[in-house]
């Protein structure tokens, strides 16, 4: 059974290893792309390391809600709609949606992915698995 602090510690270590970053500089609010410079290969690396460390399978589209972008209710003219933002809030509650909502461009969405988002996802997933 994982306590949240254990998850935070493990995720921080994984991200530090994958991104060759200083663990002390990684916070729950750290944006993977904007603050830590993550690239596509890094996201793959992180997902694989998470699966290995926590002995879970992360199905495609579950950690990063990609399918939302193909839903016409949630995306219009290159921007996330209000309904889309509400949907994202429900899936990634720890993200800074207040700032994003000021200019909800689809192209800015990747910058919302934070360390806290991963922690919250794992905490919920592991809690369900341990029931």
């Amino acid at each position, binding site marked *: 059974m994982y306590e949240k602090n254990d998850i935070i510690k493990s995720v921080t270590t994984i991200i530090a290893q994958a991104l060759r970053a200083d663990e002390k500089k990684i916070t729950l609010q750290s944006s993977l792309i904007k603050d830590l410079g993550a*690239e*596509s*290969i*890094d*996201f*793959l*690396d992180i*997902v*694989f*390391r998470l*699966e290995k460390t926590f002995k879970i399978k992360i199905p*495609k*589209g579950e*950690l*990063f*809600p*990609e399918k*939302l*972008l193909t839903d016409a209710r949630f995306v219009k003219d290159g921007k996330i709609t209000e309904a889309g933002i509400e949907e994202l809030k429900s899936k990634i509650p720890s993200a800074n949606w207040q700032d994003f909502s000021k200019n909800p461009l*689809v*192209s800015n*969405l*990747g910058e919302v*992915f934070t360390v806290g988002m991963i922690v919250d996802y794992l905490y919920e997933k592991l809690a369900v698995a341990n029931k």
Partner: protein
Amino acid sequence: MPSGGPSRIRLGIDLIEFKKAKDFYKHHQNRLASFFSEKEISYIGHGAEAYRKLAGLLAAKEAAFKASGKTWMGPEGFAAIRLTPPTGKKNFFSVKKSSQSKEALKIFLTQQHKKYVVAQCVGI
């Protein structure tokens, strides 16, 4: 110029550090099947230079993804871009037109740099 309107050329470029790809391959070579197609895995192979092929493939996918104009939302997005690796005299990756990809893309690699592979994608 094709009839019916102006042609549109999309461009995408990406680079991957070989060292990063080497570390990735070392840790995850047994998991590649969960992310890459059989053709792509066959291209990467298992030899001492497999990480260089992996770097090229990843850079090519990312360049193709950028050329497609889609927004990056996680690894699944560009995993869905299935590349046909170079074979024989053909020196580029390609993505065929399909129901999911409305454009035919060609992706060329530059591997002369010691530390990086660079992929350039042209989509028409």
